[in-house]
């Protein structure tokens, strides 16, 4: 067991190392990415640009630059942004976490509840109009690009119907910290939550339905039925319980990816200054220190969620332990 965990940790470290190297190389492959001139400012004399290049170490060999940057990121923890000079990268990422976490956690609550409802109702009313309707709706939810849905939501709540009773409560775009105002936080996030959750309600609802239906054909459910247990009890106590395992697995992976910054599009559309938006702006500005920090942060969550799910599996299902 310990060996498995160790191997797992090694693998995580390797993946994160690989990603940081990849990002670093992608960055330096870009023409016009040399930050010296941008840092120096418009119409700077060539000598000044040269000075800056030397000062920031851009004239050193790539592996050395990579090593220095990693050292400043992890050991001295004083790596600063190229664009907002003097701004430390680590606090910048940490500052962005609450917005992302609020967005993803709220959406997760919505999508778990929503998909449980969709999955259970559709499975219980299998092959009826309700089932078909729910499945079509789920598919539509899966098919909508999240940024477009966000735009449409914005259009309705910020512009077209902003002055009607339905959306007059919607505040301007942007994140309101929880510490500042609970009501403001909630109001600012309701629409982003719904937008982000729609896709996952669709996916999870459909999978849950399929699993439930599969479970119904298993022996123990048949036994339970034969015993004359009520259909509700069978559904909730027996079928749902077994069907939830894959559900939880997927949830772990998706949640990890989203907290890591995969909610980028939602954050950009709604102007929430979370990790995803930070990453996007850093990419646009080719702000390498911030890109490295956010991407390593993001991959950490992906890898960690993955490992956690594996470990959970090993605990629950001894066969996986080899």
């Amino acid at each position: 067991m310990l060996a498995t965990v160790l191997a797992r940790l090694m693998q995580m470290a390797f993946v994160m190392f690989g990603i940081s190297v990849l990002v670093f190389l992608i960055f330096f492959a870009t023409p016009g990415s040399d930050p010296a001139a941008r840092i120096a400012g418009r119409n700077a004399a060539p000598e000044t640009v040269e000075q800056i290049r030397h000062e920031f170490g851009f004239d050193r060999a790539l592996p050395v630059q990579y090593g220095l940057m990693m050292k400043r990121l992890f050991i001295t923890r004083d790596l600063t942004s190229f664009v907002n000079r003097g701004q430390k990268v680590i606090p910048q990422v940490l500052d962005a976490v609450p917005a992302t976490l609020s967005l993803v956690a709220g959406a997760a609550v919505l999508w778990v509840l929503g998909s449980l409802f969709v999955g259970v109702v559709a499975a219980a009313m299998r092959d009826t109009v309700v089932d078909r309707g729910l499945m079509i709706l789920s598919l539509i939810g899966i098919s909508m690009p999240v940024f477009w849905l966000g735009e449409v939501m914005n259009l309705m709540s910020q512009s077209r119907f902003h002055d009607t009773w339905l959306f007059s409560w919607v505040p301007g775009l942007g994140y309101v910290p929880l510490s500042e105002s609970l009501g403001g936080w909630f109001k600012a996030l309701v629409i982003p939550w719904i937008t982000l959750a729609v896709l996952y309600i669709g996916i999870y609802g459909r999978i849950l339905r399929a699993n439930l239906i599969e479970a119904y054909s298993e022996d123990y459910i048949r036994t339970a039925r034969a015993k004359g247990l009520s259909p509700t009890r069978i559904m909730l106590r027996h079928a749902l319980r077994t069907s939830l395992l894959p559900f939880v697995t997927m949830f772990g992976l998706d949640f990890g990816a989203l907290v890591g910054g995969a909610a980028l599009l939602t954050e950009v559309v709604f102007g929430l200054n979370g990790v995803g938006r930070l990453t996007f702006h850093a990419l646009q500005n080719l702000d390498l220190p911030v890109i490295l920090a956010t991407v390593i942060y993001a991959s950490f969550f992906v890898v960690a969620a993955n490992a956690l799910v594996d470990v959970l599996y090993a605990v629950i299902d001894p066969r996986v332990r080899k």
Partner: protein
Amino acid sequence: MLVLLLVALLTLLAPLYAGYLGVDPFRSNLRGKVEIAGEVVQVMQQSTEGLGLGVTPIGPTWNPGGYMLGADNQGRDVAARLLYGGRNSLFIASAATVICLVLATLIGLAAGFLGGVVDMALSRILDVLWAFPVYLLAISLSIVLLTSTIDLGLFTITAGSLALPVFIIGIIYVPYVARPVRARVLTLRHSEFVLAAVGLGLPTHRILRRDILPNLMPTIIVFVPILLALAIVTESALSYLSIGVQPPDASWGTIIQDGQTLLYSRPAVALAPGIAIVITVLALNVLGDAVRDALDPRGQVR
């Protein structure tokens, strides 16, 4: 399926529609005039109220005779661009799907069949790519490649060509396909008929071609509609962030982006391509379900 054919057909008819209207969807038409209900009006209308700030393109006329969905910021007919844009979106999605499947199959075959060090190396590389959030990878690649020309020896991809999004989208989904393909190859590799073929000393390429590939096909085909749907959505997201298809070319994503700057005054510009994407992707998903039920009843592919 029918819906898909219809969408494809409509987009193929784009030149006909544009020709019928006598509009050029790739040419700015800032000084254009159009006749609506017997009245000749400017396509780009200067605000005359208040301080007279701002110029707004005309809105939807709901008349197939021209500017059915209004004009965009360049005074171009949105309906005509929607059809042309659909062509690009579908083309990019299809080409990206092909690239992705070919690459993923090759990697899956190499890793699964050869095993050992090759498998180890490929799997680790896939792990790295897999832990890189899809959109982040796509955006990083796009930002880098938009400023440079790639020379792949056989052919060059110049910045701003359609091949660029094709290439990027094709690559980023490789890990998602290669993993299940590798798993399937592994199973096949240890199946009795392959072991028998190896035992008989048949050449590897023959085993691959005759025994493994045909049995791999169902797994690959299941991915086609799923990948198409993913590619359409990804392409639109990249174009929406202005790092996909470059102007004056259109795709559904770029039209949404054009429409975003007109969201308050002319929402139809952003709504129409979104609806087109939803319809197409929905049809693909339905098709995907059907294919999966037919080829992969045990749900190995997710």
